[in-house]
């Protein structure tokens, strides 16, 4: 297990390094000149050059990159181009907000998906099964940004039940989580339904029934445990989608998380802030997948991780 953990950690570091390097280069090559953006169109060249110098953009890109790596190894994500904020402080202040939004979304989506997926699997062909499949098709076809606006107009503006924007308390979770859950639940429901149907047809389930084990115990202990394996895999894979989705949802709901931070920083070409936000998102993504891999062995002892002792 130790060997496996070391190997995975090395892989994760390589992935994160590739991501931040790519973002670093793309910003410098394709995102333009922040110094020009920060100054008036008729600003003298000396002023532009002084701004570049102040931002550290007057050095060749490879020198900037070396400075970036040196600072990163020292735990320093740099200073914001606007003001003199520490990128690390701003990013780590935003991270819990995104993490909470993602966690609640996964929790709510999983509960809904388990209820609807199991219900549909146990009643194949019934009105419930058909209704669930209609919901799946419907939810898959709704764009998140449209749903978010509609939810805000109905529940915040018209009815006044919930906040339209910001993170001001537990009620603030309702609309963004609903928006993201509608995007996430279809694939979870389909996976759980299919997994349950296949598991219920296994010989050991039939044997359990033949031995007179209660239906509830068969479902909760034998079937659910096996069927949860693809669910966990899927949530790990979907963590990328959840992070990406949070970029859209956070901006619509003015949610002070990593997604909004990154988009706002990009609009002002605040390179260090974009790099910091992407770095933290990449680390989060690989860690979630690492945890998912670890969960496999717990859920199914037959699985041995390659390289584990």
């Amino acid at each position: 297990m130790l060997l496996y953990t070391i190997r995975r950690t090395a892989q994760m570091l390589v992935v994160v390094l590739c991501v931040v390097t790519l973002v670093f280069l793309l910003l410098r090559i394709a995102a333009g000149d922040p110094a020009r953006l920060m100054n008036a169109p008729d600003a003298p060249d000396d002023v532009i050059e002084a701004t570049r110098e102040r931002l550290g953009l007057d050095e060749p890109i490879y020198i900037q990159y070396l400075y970036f790596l040196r600072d990163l190894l020292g735990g320093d994500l740099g200073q914001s181009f606007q003001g003199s904020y520490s990128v690390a402080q701003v990013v780590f202040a935003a991270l819990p907000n995104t993490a909470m939004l993602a966690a609640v979304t996964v929790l709510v989506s999983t509960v809904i998906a388990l209820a609807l997926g199991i219900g549909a699997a146990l009643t194949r062909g019934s009105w419930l099964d058909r209704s669930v499949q209609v919901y799946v098709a419907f939810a898959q076809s709704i764009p998140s940004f449209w749903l978010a606006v509609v939810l805000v107009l109905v529940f915040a503006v018209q009815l006044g039940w919930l906040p339209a924007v910001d993170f001001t308390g537990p009620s603030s979770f309702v609309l963004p989580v609903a928006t993201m859950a509608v995007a996430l639940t279809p694939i979870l429901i389909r996976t759980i339904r299919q997994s349950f149907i296949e598991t219920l047809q296994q010989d050991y389930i039939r044997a359990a029934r033949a031995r007179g084990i209660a239906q509830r115990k068969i479902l909760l202990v034998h079937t659910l445990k096996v069927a949860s394996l693809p669910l966990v895999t899927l949530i790990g894979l979907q963590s990328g989608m959840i992070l990406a989705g949070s970029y859209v949802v956070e901006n619509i709901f003015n949610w002070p998380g990593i997604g909004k931070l990154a988009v706002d920083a990009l609009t002002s070409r605040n390179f260090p802030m974009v790099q910091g936000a992407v770095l933290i998102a990449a680390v989060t993504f690989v860690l979630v997948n690492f945890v998912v891999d670890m969960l496999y062995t717990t859920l199914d002892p037959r699985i041995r991780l390659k390289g584990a002792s």
Partner: protein
Amino acid sequence: MRGKLKWSTGIATVALVITACSANEVPGENDADDQGGDAGDSNDTSGDDSVRFLIAENFWADWVPYQSTAQSQARLNVHIYDTLLQFPSGELDQPVPSLATEWEQVDATTWEFTLREDVTFHDGTPLDAEDVKASIELASGATGAETVLQTRWVPTTGEVVDDHTVRLVTEEPFASLLNAVRQTPIVSSEDIEAGQDTMAQEPNGTGPFTLVEESETKKTMEANEDYWNGPPEIGELVWEFVADPQTRVSALLAGQADAIDRVPAEQHATIEDEDGFSLVSATASEQVNLWSIPDREPMWDESPELRRAVMLAIDRPALVDSLVMGESVTADSFAPETTLHHTSGSPSYEQDLDEARQLVQEAGAEGLEFELWVASGFLPRAEQVGEAIAANLNEVGLNVRVVPSDVAGLVDDSNSESGTGLLYHLSWSSGGDPDAALGIYATPNRWTAGDETIDQLVAEGKTTTDPQQRAAVYDELQAYLWDELPHIPLYYSDFTVAYSDRVRDLRVLPNYETDFYPASIGE
């Protein structure tokens, strides 16, 4: 039963953790001093004296004075800093006292200002003539240090007559001095001496509000209880960048914001129909052009026929009436109609597709391919405007591709030597002063090709102090630009702010200043 209990317990535990976290978490908020903050009440607009204003433009610039013309920064500055004079009506011939109580022109290049005696900076230092001298000399470029604001000035030195009297001596006669004074915040001479880093960290003005917290996208100000003109009624003023127009509108209508700017035209009726909300506009004050970049397409630079064809091909009134939904006025000059000495150009360039087609042929530009860049999320319905223009131009034989971008991407492509666009849909706001409005077309601006006539007339307008002669100069300059068409003037755009009725006497000026002093609040 035990299974159900476990699930319920698990969910309740997670909910409790979330609730606990949500009460204490920091939503990207940073105290100016310790980068800390508190989310619990950061967005609460229900406080009796707190006002939250959501704006469409990010805070590009920092607090270093005179180094930015960003609208967002200028609007913040007027709440932190004072200037010698104010123009609350927006009319440039109606200055009122601010830090200066009296002023007079001594000779062609000398103005004398008498300062108020009861003014202190936020750090408690009294204002005196040395502060005015240091501020104006730095801003105008007289110290040798390059500043962005110096393009609005001619180099100007200060002479301290006594503690509260200062003379400003311009290098040559300067017609826009009073307007330049209006745009120049007065900074403490000690701060200027301490350098840019000090000024960037702690904005220290004499204005009605003090900065108490700031983050990348949010600035929180508190009332300056010692303000010389009386403390503001608004105790806390929060400025926050929110890019999405729909989010701004939703926040306002849901009561989570007190004011929002750049309200999309299609939302005006919705807001007006709701009880408790109002709209206020600065009408037709922003010059929206298709700006061209020199040397991108030789044919554009060299062929007046091609430029004229483009002007004649575009149905500009239709853009105003249909796409921008009447929140603009069709341009009849290169300076908005609210500009001093504005004159209407002739001919009116009404759409004439046949003539445009013929001019394209005469220019040998049939099938000419080029890019038209538009920035979404800033000017109203920019992408639709761009598509309509491209359709017009393609109809007369050109081959135009619309490139949607964000503002930063558009500005960058226009700046870059490897930029691929020829025309850019952008605006320029100038607040009514003809030098600010028309100086943008002169060297060294990057949009210009170094036209000597334009450069000469802009310089002449700046230094001609006789009103009639100055009007004649600007008349000639506008006529020349209208004939040459170095860019394509489209319309003068409105700037609209929506606000809840708990904010009273909010003032929006033609230069987009949104003044929360002396506004008041009440339920």
